[in-house]
């Protein structure tokens, strides 16, 4: 029996504001517990919320980036429930009229681009944090995070399977970071996802009963959790069972989801418009001002770069994986000829990306700046460096030894392309290795490669390999 896995994601993206959404306290990460909780965040008697306009602007920026409707009037509502790290006993959120409605996120999938539709995105405040260790059977409450602005981005159940869900989450992550609304730091909780998962038999049009999975704090866990949950649901259904709507928690240690609360146990949040805050009214001019300041979006830029330089899709995707990456690439190739562009693109997509991944850093922290890379690629295309030497120079540039030319000069790495010098080196190698010459003539191709290697070794890798090949073939007849 074939099953289709249906997923919708709810993503909480922390908005990049200096202060909280309804108070003046700082949102900086990592302060001592409760050092960044002011009277409003602690919910002292008598305090009132005041909306941070910066959070509103970031929400609008997101809405414009996904082609959504920006509601000219939206309403803050109270979501009421008791929890020790929820100081007011309610969370200020948006319910019936969110600021952003509709829109779509383009996701690059192996079979082509898919536009994943969004239901809505709304503004809300984060809760604090409960700390259960180190308090001798009691719990500690840290309210530094309480009141941090969040944009909750809700997708339609448009995703089919774990891989697609992760691809969407990655694309959304790249987008919110790209447009500067979120720092995307998943370890610090700046980007968190819950997944609504259901399954149905292929060909069915109605959705199955869904379960919401919480605690997906990495893309890897998200994929595993959705896969586990889909398997579980399919198992239940194939055994003739029924899926109950519930909230489940993913446990990465045991790689399984566990029931957290059933539909019956679900909170009645008693949403109602927050009387402390007036409806949020936006003027056309406010929205247009934000639209005018929008950067080129990732999908547009990927298309433009890919087409302009005739790059293969995977390369174009890597080069536009972040705004900084695309800026880096475009700075490195400014005014360059097509061959240099091709070499630069391949270099960044290959060597540079690999080094960044190894070190776990982003392009913005790359020790080699675009001008330096440009110097290196120049020496590659003009034949000064072989690919192997170029890698050595690159390593040295990463180690901070200076520009490509400086390193070439210091290490004497200039590729030997001088025919006379190469002829001499080849002659010496042939004279010293009569056995291999014999083997080659007897038809052993391996012996040829060994002779090339000997020449390269003799020139300490500096010989131009194309030329060495040609000379050897000629001499060996």
């Amino acid at each position, binding site marked *: 029996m074939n099953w289709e896995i249906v997923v919708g994601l709810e993503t909480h993206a922390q908005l990049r504001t200096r202060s909280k959404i309804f108070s003046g306290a700082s949102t900086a990460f990592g302060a001592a517990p409760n050092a960044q909780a002011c009277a409003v965040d602690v919910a002292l008697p*008598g*305090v009132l*919320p005041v909306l941070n306009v910066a959070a509103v602007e970031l929400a609008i920026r997101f809405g414009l980036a996904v082609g959504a409707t920006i509601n000219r009037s939206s309403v803050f509502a109270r979501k009421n429930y008791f929890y020790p790290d929820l100081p007011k006993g*309610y969370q200020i959120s948006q319910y019936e009229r969110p600021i952003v409605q509709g829109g779509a996120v383009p996701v690059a999938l192996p079979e082509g681009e898919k536009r994943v539709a969004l239901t809505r995105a709304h503004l809300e405040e984060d809760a604090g944090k409960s700390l259960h260790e180190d308090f001798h059977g009691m719990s500690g409450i840290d309210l530094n995070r309480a009141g941090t602005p969040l944009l909750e981005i809700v997708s339609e159940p448009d995703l089919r399977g774990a891989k697609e869900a992760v691809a969407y989450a990655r694309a959304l992550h790249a987008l919110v970071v790209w447009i500067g609304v979120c720092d995307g730091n998943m370890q610090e909780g700046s980007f968190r996802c819950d997944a609504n998962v259901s399954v149905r038999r292929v060909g069915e049009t109605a959705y199955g009963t869904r379960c919401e999975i919480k605690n997906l704090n990495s893309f890897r866990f998200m994929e595993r959790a959705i896969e586990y949950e889909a398997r579980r649901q399919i198992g239940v259904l194939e055994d003739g069972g029924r899926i109950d709507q519930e909230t489940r928690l993913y446990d990465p240690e045991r790689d399984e989801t566990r029931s957290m609360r059933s539909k019956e146990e679900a909170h009645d949040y*008693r949403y109602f418009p927050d009387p*402390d805050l007036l409806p949020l009214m936006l003027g056309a001019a406010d929205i247009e001002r934000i639209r005018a300041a929008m950067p080129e979006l990732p999908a547009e830029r990927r298309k433009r770069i890919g087409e302009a330089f005739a790059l293969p899709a995977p390369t174009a995707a890597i080069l536009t994986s972040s705004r900084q990456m695309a800026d880096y690439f475009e700075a490195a190739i400014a005014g360059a000829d097509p061959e240099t562009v091709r070499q630069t693109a391949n270099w960044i997509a290959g060597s540079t990306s690999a080094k960044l991944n190894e070190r776990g850093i982003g392009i913005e922290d790359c020790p080699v700046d675009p001008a330096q890379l440009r110097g290196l690629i120049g020496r590659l295309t003009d034949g000064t460096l072989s690919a192997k030497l170029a890698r050595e120079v690159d390593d040295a540039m990463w180690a901070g030894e200076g520009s490509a030319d400086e390193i070439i000069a210091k290490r004497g790495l200039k590729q030997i392309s001088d025919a006379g010098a190469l002829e001499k080196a080849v002659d010496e190698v042939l004279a010293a290795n009569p056995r291999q010459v014999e083997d080659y003539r007897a038809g052993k191709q391996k012996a040829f490669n060994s002779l090339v290697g000997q020449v390269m070794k003799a020139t300490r890798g500096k010989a131009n390999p194309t030329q060495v090949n040609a000379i050897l073939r000629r001499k060996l007849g």
Partner: protein
Amino acid sequence: MLNATVAELSSALAARRISSVELAQLFLDRIERLNGVLNAFITVDAEHTLKEARRADASRARQDAGPLTGIPIAHKDIYCTRGLRTTCGSRMLANFVSPYDARVIERLAEAGMVTLGKTNMDEFAMGSSNETSYFGPVRNAWSAACVPGGSSGGSAVAVSARMAPAATGTDTGGSIRQPAALTGICGLKPTYGLVSRYGMIAFASSLDQGGPMARTAQDLALLLNAMAGFDNRDSTSVERAPEDYSRMLELDLAGLRIGVPAEFFGEGLDAAVRKQVEGAMRWYGEQGARMVPVRLPNAGLALPVYYVLAPAEASSNLARYDGVRYGHRAQDCADLLDMYVRTRTEGFGEEVKRRILVGTYVLSHGYYDAYYLQAQKLRRLIARDFAAAYHDCDLIMGPTAPTTAFALGAKMDDPVQMYLNDIYTIPAPLAGLPALSIPCGFDAKGLPVGLQLTGNYFSEALLLGMAHRYQQASDWHLRVPAETPL
């Protein structure tokens, strides 16, 4: 001096006939003498008061004094005050000391006023008799067997018994005007948004509004001048140019149109109250004002609408009192739920719990549309009734409360009877309109009757002018309560 108005004290201080410290001491002594019986104050800190008085005298000495500098005032214990505990009349906050001052407290301090103490009130401002206070009932100075009204009953009695020349109050469904009426003083609930709610402990946020309580309309105007003003920490605060609320005190009454809604003179109105109110209206007529019958067809729905919306907001506003961060916390709790349940069971009184339950119910899934949403729609209709009425009149006049002060305990077992006390005061806050109450006579038992004037948005100066003209021609507001002779 104890019997002087704020305006008179202002002159006396300016003329150096008395110092602020001497004045504060006079009132502190009187509080000391009367509070044991009346229970108007929850917290009095003489040293704190005298320190502020000395500061006021120092300001005056360097020619840096305004009209209110050095004048003592009592604050309803709903306003957060740094250094003086703020209980809101509840066991939940019995030991709570705020680390910050409410905006109203700041403004009055900036004007140089001297805090006499914190006044008793119904718990979390939920009550019409001041009997729901954790700190015990307040007694009416006109008859100690009677309630003073509520929820600002402590402030009302403090002013009425000359324990303070003025006091702050808050009004959600009548909490300034009804106790003012029942204690024979003046009280003004301003237009919603005029006075900052920052630091005023929330009961029902869309209705709560702070305002002054004093012996004369002129004093109310002086106090409102200091209390009103935009506050960027309150998103519902109204940003508008400052105005002098005393500017219309010498108002010409001729030609003014006074709206008289039949709905305010129907069943349940005590005959003595009606007689006194009609007497006051007759006086206005004699001055050339015109009585215009107006209709408020939805006024009868105001009480049920209020008792859906106010508890709904309260149920959410009071969720923060959970024992986690401040205030009362139950001891030896088994687990989190046990802590919540016992903290709130112990910390809140019966009336507060009743309203939290009602509010939680009307916001619940499946009931929201039928109650909360329906009430919001009716609220809009009530506001529309007023708007229509103000096409035909300049203000609306009627009784503040249907009866005079009632006996302690008389209505405690019947919440609906208790709620009916606010039948005339509830429509104005639902519409966000300003309204004030001034004394207009006494019933046969010698208990004061209040006259209510409700105006259009931001018409405080007009209302105060109307009231002042009446007080120039009457002496109800000058009478000293029988039980607290000077």
